[in-house]
């Protein structure tokens, strides 16, 4: 089925939660909803599911208007951030519950529950109660429950947030494969840009109830249509600086000069916002045409394999992402290097006007 949202708006008590969102979800597509907390991801999913009606707009399934239709008639499934299972039923009964309610016959239930459990690697836990399972196993059960009924729309609302790091990686790798062979529309909400990139598919970026961009995930990542999208789809958020183009060069507010060359060559005179991702800044010079900048070290976060160095200059704070462990002295002036070929340029309204060409290494887009 194809799910179409037409000008969906949702206001609750005078507050706009969803602001004029239109999108079309193709059959069998994997769609990531990326946005910060309170961006409206959950509300949008609830509207897609039919758990709450939109204030304005229509929801179409294959050209049929289903806006007011009750959720149990829509054949949807949802997996939540919390691990939602029926507490007094064992894993088997939990997975079987949607089928039982649909009136599927016993042998068929038995077969499908076992198949799904095997797929989720919980076939050895079928007799256990949810409270006896680890968080990962509980979430696997909840996902099995959602997948067993062959729904047309599967909504996953930050399903991995409450899992520990290792389990999260494990499940995140499995999810796209598990769902690949189905014609179910999958919608997956997350706050993490890395998760969106790893999951692939298409990505809709949400900001304060609006959808700022919708397209193939890597394309959105490489061409964020606006400053907002860039900020949301970068972790740490993309570094920004005001700049002006005049006399054949770009002058940053900080006084640094960038040549009007490469992908930036076509910028006309005027004001711009330049953006660069943290991983394209470096405390070591990386090439001949890098721009040297100076700033004060405010903070250094060491994650183990990487160091995030926060620098401050001319009222601007930037984050530099460095491989390995670095221990710069706090408060001290440091030099860092900008690779001008990785700069994004946004116009005065915040719309993208120039994006760096996609780097291709080993056949994979970086």
């Amino acid at each position: 089925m194809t799910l179409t949202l037409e000008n969906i708006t949702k206001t609750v008590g005078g507050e706009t939660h969803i602001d004029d969102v239109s999108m079309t979800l193709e059959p069998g597509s994997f769609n990531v909803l990326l946005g910060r907390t309170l961006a409206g991801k959950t509300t949008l999913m609830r509207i897609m599911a039919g758990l709450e009606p939109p204030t304005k707009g229509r929801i179409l399934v294959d050209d049929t208007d289903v806006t007011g239709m009750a959720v149990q008639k829509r054949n949807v499934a949802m997996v939540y951030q919390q691990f939602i299972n029926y507490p007094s039923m064992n894993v088997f009964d939990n997975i079987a519950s949607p089928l039982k309610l649909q009136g599927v016959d016993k042998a068929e239930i038995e077969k499908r529950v076992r198949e799904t459990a095997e797929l989720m690697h919980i076939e050895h836990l079928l007799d256990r109660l949810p409270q006896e399972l680890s968080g990962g196993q509980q979430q696997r059960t909840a996902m099995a429950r959602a997948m067993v009924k062959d729904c047309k729309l599967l909504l996953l609302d930050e399903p991995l947030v409450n899992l520990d790091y290792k389990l999260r990686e494990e499940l995140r790798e499995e999810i796209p494969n598990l769902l690949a062979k189905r014609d179910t529309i999958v919608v997956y909400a997350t706050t993490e840009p890395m998760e969106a990139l790893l999951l692939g598919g298409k990505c809709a970026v949400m900001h304060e109830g609006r959808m700022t961009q919708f397209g193939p995930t890597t394309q959105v990542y490489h061409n964020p249509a606006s400053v907002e999208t860039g900020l949301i789809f970068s972790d740490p958020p993309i570094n920004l600086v005001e700049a002006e183009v005049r006399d054949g060069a770009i002058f940053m507010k900080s006084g640094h000069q960038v040549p009007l060359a490469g992908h930036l060559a076509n910028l006309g005179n005027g004001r711009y916002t330049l953006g660069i991702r943290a991983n394209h800044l470096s405390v070591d010079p990386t090439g001949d045409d890098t721009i040297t900048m100076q700033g004060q070290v405010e903070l250094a976060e060491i994650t183990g394999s990487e160091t995030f160095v926060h620098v401050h200059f001319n009222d601007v704070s930037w984050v530099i992402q460095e491989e390995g462990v670095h221990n710069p002295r706090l408060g001290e002036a440091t030099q860092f290097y900008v690779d001008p070929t990785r700069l994004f340029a946004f116009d005065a309204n915040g719309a993208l006007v120039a994006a760096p060409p996609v780097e291709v290494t080993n056949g994979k887009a970086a």
Partner: protein
Amino acid sequence: MNKITNNKAWFLVLPVFFIVAISAIIPLMTVVNYSVQDIFDPQTRFFVGTEWFEQVLSDRRLHDALIRQIVYTMSVLLIEVPLGIAVALTLPRKGWGVSASMVLLALPLLIPWNVVGTIWQIFGRADIGLGGYLINLMGIDYNYAQNSMDAWLTVLVMDVWHWTSLIVLLCYAGLRSIPDAYYQAAKIDGASRWAVFRFIQLPKMQSVLVIGVLLRFMDSFMIYTEPFVLTGGGPGNATTFLSQFLTRMAVGQFDLGPAAAFSLVYFLIILLVCWVFYTVVMNAGKQGEQ
């Protein structure tokens, strides 16, 4: 492995030990003391062994009181628990209604036992009490001071009025702790209202319900003040529950030996029932888990 010994730790335990000794162990030992001796005055006493226990346990009046007590406590639980759950389910979940209903529900809980007794004593009177008057007006001959059944029922209604709120508040707290996502998940599955109650709300309320049932069991099994104020245990022996019986024995007849023996038996009954109930409920949960 060398065990680290630090004798200072004993000083930290001492206050608790002291308080428990004063509040529980020493009084209990006094009762034990009385239960095995016939004491006339501090100098004159005789060891009687299990005589008081035998006398008390074979007392027919005590058997009657025990049966009356069990029937009463069961009735209290059978009414208050389902009623409490039902009321909790109908309470509003947000808005001003929440605080309003909380205050209303908490009111009976704030009233002292003997005041509850007095309220109902007056309320139930056929001549000047609103409740008693209305019941008689409906053609039902109601008089708690003369009719055993009426007295027994009045004590029961009194308890339900006084304590159902406790179950309601406990269940409501349990219900409030259920994330909204559970209800959404059930809605997506198309589960019925009954299924939501049976498979989400009831299991999620289990732990608070255990506490509620235990509290109500212990409390109603020890009921004293309300029947004492209402009818003093009468008419006849209709509302003479175990506590009344015990008080009559100890204070009225000053049979301290049998009263002490009976106190211990009484205490053991409550302890035993609570322990059995708790173990059964907790094991029932585990049984299902395997």
